[in-house]
């Protein structure tokens, strides 16, 4: 029987809508990016007003909002940091996630009561480094993705600090922050949000002194690449919980609403099921099935058990993974008529096999038999983006439930 507290389930939120879905589907906390100092310059990213709205929404659910300020700053980026952290504090976010001590210091000076978490970009991979940050007054560190479950256990035994660890999503194949391929190959600064993901490109590998000028890649008919499979701890979550991880983190501020809702839903279910009865915990194959519906690459446990091999990398053509579209968002449901009002997010129509799902791992599948537009006119397909439709459904639905369709 575990005596542990439930760890936090921490989800990415690229914009306000994703924030609401992540929290509604069971995240205890979300991390977002603002307009400055964050590494995902292409994610939606929040204005201070949007942050305020996000914090208010989160508060209703008892959830927290963290802001990533995780760039590695150059001199010219330091300006404005004080004001930015002051604003974040006033907006009411619960913590910032930072890697650069310059920004950590600015935050402390400008907003002494704003909590700081050390980002994975700082590559914290041993207990003494965790201890260093503990002594600095830092309450939480996000670990490097290169640590094993055993190493985490040892860190937690030796240091009284909160540990946040990734459980799902895309990964740098390098130590995060220690790769400047993008800077060199595209002049885009990876550590300031410009990463071009050059590690996932195709290369030719040559052996020195091989004078016939033919690469090994050509001989083997297989390009050289360094693309990591995505991380997933869906089958092993209790190991991380028992090692003492305080916050279980899902990657993906650039990912879709469908992705965030699906992945959060699964891990929420796993955590809750485990804590209901840890001794009789069993994996439900439906959880794994569900995770694959949002998967974009093959999945791996990365460094958590063994050093990753070629089986944890992506070579050649991408693996074939069933792809699902987020087809519609449930806005309303009429119990009397069993008709749901659905906002179209991807084309669907009569005859399509669709799956509805919602928080608490609620699921059912059905074929669409009757479909109407907003005026009540019977239609064959919902072709227009964001159009409001009505569908006769087999089981009850609620606002925030979602409809997906296999591509």
């Amino acid at each position, binding site marked *: 029987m575990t005596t542990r507290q439930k760890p936090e389930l921490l989800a990415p939120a690229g914009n306000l809508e994703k924030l609401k879905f992540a929290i509604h589907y069971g995240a205890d906390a979300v991390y977002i990016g603002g307009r400055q100092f964050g590494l995902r310059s292409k994610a939606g990213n929040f204005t201070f007003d949007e942050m305020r709205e996000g914090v208010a929404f989160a508060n209703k659910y008892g959830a927290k909002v963290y802001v990533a300020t995780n760039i590695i*700053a*150059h001199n010219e980026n330091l300006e404005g940091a004080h004001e930015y952290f002051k604003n974040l504090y006033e907006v009411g976010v619960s913590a910032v996630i930072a890697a650069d001590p310059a920004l950590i210091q600015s935050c402390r000076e400008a907003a002494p009561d704003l909590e700081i978490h050390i980002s994975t970009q*700082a590559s914290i991979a041993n207990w003494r480094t965790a201890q*260093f*940050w503990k002594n600095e007054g830092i309450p939480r560190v996000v670990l490097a993705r290169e640590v094993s479950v055993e190493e985490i256990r*040892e860190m937690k035994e030796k240091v009284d600090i909160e540990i946040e660890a990734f459980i799902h999503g895309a990964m740098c194949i390098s130590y995060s922050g220690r790769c400047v391929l993008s800077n060199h190959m595209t002049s885009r600064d990876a550590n300031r949000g410009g990463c071009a993901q050059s590690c996932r490109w195709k290369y030719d590998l040559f052996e020195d002194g091989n004078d016939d000028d033919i690469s090994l890649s050509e001989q083997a008919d297989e390009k050289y690449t360094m693309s990591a499979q995505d991380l997933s701890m869906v089958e092993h979550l209790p190991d991380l919980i028992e090692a003492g991880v305080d916050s279980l983190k899902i990657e993906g501020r650039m990912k879709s609403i469908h992705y965030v809702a699906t992945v959060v839903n699964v891990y929420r279910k796993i955590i809750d099921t485990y804590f209901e009865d840890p001794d009789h915990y069993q994996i439900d194959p439906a959880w794994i099935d569900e995770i694959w519906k949002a998967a974009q690459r093959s999945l791996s446990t990365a460094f958590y058990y063994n050093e990753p091999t070629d089986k944890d990398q992506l070579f050649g053509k991408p693996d074939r993974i069933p792809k699902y579209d987020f087809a519609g968002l449930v806005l309303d449901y009429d119990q009397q008529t069993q008709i749901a009002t659905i906002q179209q997010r991807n084309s669907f129509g009569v005859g399509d096999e669709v799956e509805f799902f919602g928080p608490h791992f609620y699921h059912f599948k059905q074929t669409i038999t009757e479909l109407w537009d907003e005026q009540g006119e019977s239609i064959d397909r919902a072709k227009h983006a964001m159009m409001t439709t009505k569908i006769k459904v087999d089981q009850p639905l609620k606002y925030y439930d979602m409809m997906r369709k296999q591509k």
Partner: protein
Amino acid sequence: MMCLYKPELQATAKDLDEVKALTKAGADAIVLGNQQFGNRVCGDFTLDQVKSATDWLHLEGKRIYIMVNAIFHNDHLKQLPDYLKTLETFGVDGIIAGDQAIFQLLDELNLTLPLTWNPATLSTNYQTLNFWHQRGLKRATLSNELSLDAVIEIKQKVAFPIEIQVHGMTCIFQSKRKLIRNYYNHIKEDYNPEQMRFIKEDKKDDTHYPIFEDGNGTHIMSNEDLVMIEYLDQILEAEIDGLLINGILKTKSYNEKIVSIYREAIDTYLNNPRHYQIKKSGWRQAIEDIQPEQRAMNTGFYFKEQIY
């Protein structure tokens, strides 16, 4: 007026022979290490060899810095205290490290080994470096992805010595994974760890990124060799304290020649800047003459804009 500024010309070495050769060629300090604790060391020095190198260099009036710049995992921490204590008894002139565990360790072990802070890509602004200075660094190596203007601004805003690389390839990627071995396994070829390798970008025939594995994972090096011989005036004018020649994956004879060229160029500039201007293109030519065929020369990010 007497010029008090004297930059330290540093060079990496792969073995004792090279330590001696590069010192005789004009290096003020030698940088070396063992891959158990050091990232991208040029050759593995045992503790006995570190002691020999230290004694020899000190007799010559030169300095020695030991690379302890791995990203530490719990396992490293078991042997690291003994390693550091031994280095202190040898009287080495400093260690080069970039993991925050080092501050704690030096404190706890009561060691006075001077620390050169070098966290590779993370040494990018003066406020960060001042933060680490308050935690105990004595010197800092700046990241290679900085403009020379940024380097100069940092120099003006910190009160401790700073170092930059002026020559050789730079590291542009480090993974803990065995990314070469994994590929060989994947294509079912035997992997020979002694074999040197490089990768090319797809459809870019003139690219050449050396790639190798060591105890700390896989490292990829830059497409071009940094060659700052013609811009030393700006670096020396700014009184940058340490100038590093990284000789990794280069022959001893190449490194010897490079060190002697930079030695001459630095001394010439300090004695008479005008003579430096007259002679600099000749030095560049001398480097070009010995440059390996596949290795292009450039000035890294010192004069290059980055977007993000």
